[in-house]
């Protein structure tokens, strides 16, 4: 029995033959790096999942144009970068929404208990968005790979030592940027 996992090229061919589950397997395989790339390039953390979906949908639609199926990973990363750049540009623009404000409200007590952690996390992600592109991407890859540095380095296309240097520099810079005076706990006291 053949235990070998299908290659990306085989999954692409199956997808083109109408097997959507094959494309689902490509998603399983590459969603993490796509998330890292869209987060890293756009700096828009709350929209990461939307951008990831967008990247894969575009990839599916453009699949017949993929000329070298073995390079699906590089190709989807290129699409993800494109989607993220669009997002970054769109964030600079004004929006005009006619959507009514949500009527559901959070109770004051719930809000208070959740606010501290959420605000602190938001602060971290906001500062993360301000890091240089390569450092931001390194952080996202590292944590999306559940801190498996070897796999993260491979995904980032860097040597292990190069990736280590990048991610440690990123964390150090981030720690420096989140000064005690800026933390939510401090501002509440």
């Amino acid at each position, binding site marked *: 029995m053949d235990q070998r996992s299908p290659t990306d090229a085989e999954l692409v061919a199956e997808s083109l033959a109408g097997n959507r589950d094959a494309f689902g397997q490509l998603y399983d395989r590459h969603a993490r790096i796509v998330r890292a790339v869209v987060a890293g390039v756009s700096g828009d953390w709350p929209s990461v*999942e939307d951008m990831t979906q967008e990247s894969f949908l575009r990839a599916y*639609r453009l699949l017949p144009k993929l000329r070298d199926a073995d390079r699906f990973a590089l190709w989807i990363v290129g699409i993800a970068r494109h989607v993220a*750049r669009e997002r970054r540009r769109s964030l600079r623009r004004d*929006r005009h929404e006619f*959507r009514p404000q949500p009527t559901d409200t959070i109770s004051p007590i719930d809000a208070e208990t959740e606010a501290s952690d959420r605000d602190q*996390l938001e602060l971290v992600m906001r500062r993360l968005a301000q890091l240089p592109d390569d450092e931001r991407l390194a952080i996202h890859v590292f944590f999306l790979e559940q801190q498996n540095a070897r796999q993260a380095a491979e995904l980032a296309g860097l040597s292990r030592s190069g990736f280590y240097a990048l991610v440690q520099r990123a964390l150090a810079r981030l720690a420096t940027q989140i000064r005690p005076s800026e933390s939510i706990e401090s501002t509440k006291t």
Partner: protein
Amino acid sequence: MACFTQEQLATLALGLTDGLKQSAHIAQCDACRATLADMLGLADQLSTAHMVLSDNHAASRAQLMASLSNFKVPVHSTSIWNQLASTLTAMLTRHRFAAGGFGLSTVAGALLLLAIFSNSATRLAAMDRMLTAVRKVTSYSFNEVDHMVFLASNGKPQTIRRETYSACWRAPDEANREWLGDLHAEVKSWHRPSAYGEASNSDVERLALHLAETYPTGKPSLIVVYTESYYFWTDPMPAGDLPVDNTIAKLRAVQQGQGKIVRELGTKHVDGREARGYILSFDEAVPFRGDGPVEVWVDPQTDLPMELSYNRTDEKQEGKYIDEHCLTDIRWNIDFPPDQFATIAPADLVNTTPPNDKKDIAQIIAALKLYADLSGGHYPPIRTLDPATKTDPTVEVDPHTRFDGKLILDEMRNLAGFSGPPNPTWSQDPKYQQIEAVIPGLDWLSRILLNRVRAGFFGTEVQSQDRDKVLFWCTAAERGHWRIFYGDLQTEVVPESKFKQLVPTAVFP
């Protein structure tokens, strides 16, 4: 022992090194211990934030699979009409690639082809020169003629499409590297009705598409579709916004040394100058796959191509399609007149650009709301055609596929009781005044909906209580996004993934 640097502590916090070696110092040093604790906390927060995405993977995958069910399996079309219709639709929807992008990649490809001569040592110098030349090109222009010939399994060849392209491009300056540069391109596409099986005028060509696009660097760009009598404004073209077989991909191919000369053609005169000819083959090399052998005529003085031609062949069940491409009048590093990339909207055509201003959108909503109020919750019974359907010449155009604001206005007056010969006293009636006040909104809808590729209306299917159904959609100012108006006239801007779910019949620019 000296205190650790921030980066050394970060290494420990990230678990990238064995912390035991440094533990003695950490245990004794309050400052290092505090900083390390902060970093560990930070790493925990980052881990938590990212974990949410991993935890949601299954749900996200399910959402993706549901979205895919709205897509047809991406396969090629199987009939002559579909072959042409898909090309036309692609041109209308991806206009920036149809003329400019196509030309851009083709000509750049031509340049690069020449850089690949050197499979032998004696040609290495020529390759270096060519790569240098490629990188120094700052502008160009060219003309191109394409013929699509259909070769039936048991019949004679027939030309089913003829197209002309012209394009000119100028590189952006350093400050504008984010953009593609200045680009102007124009395409005309003629089809032979006989190709669709029509009995009469079998030899008469029909101009199926005449489109011009102008992208000044980093500025609003103008697309004019003469055959549809409209134009629209769109956002600037970013540098990376090109097809997968674009210039960059071809550059990579060159750097990888793909392609080889299979034959030298000698010399001939092109535009009064002597040119050297070559046949180049790329076999199945990416990204030239499918282009077949490429014939290039080169100016020996500049090492830049003067003419280039190749064929693409597409074998289908019903026969073979041969698409012949020939580029001529290629000019390099030229100075364009100041107005070459000016965007001037044609005064006699309709501007179909959707609004982005709150006030304009409110006018559209007001017009549709009043119609619904007058008609008991219905909307104008218009259902715009899907673009690919409309471009099929065998399809009769039903009047109910066009949103005519004047007809809708008359209908609203009738619904409100203002029927028969016009009466001067009507203008004093508040209801009549209310109807007159929504004319701007109807005008917006009439204009926007002329562009079937970038807008659609489902008035035959959606009523005012249908809060989850799409009544009207159009492209939004935000790139890659669409504005949706639901049956209850709430509106929002959505990305492609959501739009595809909401309007599966739409095509995508």
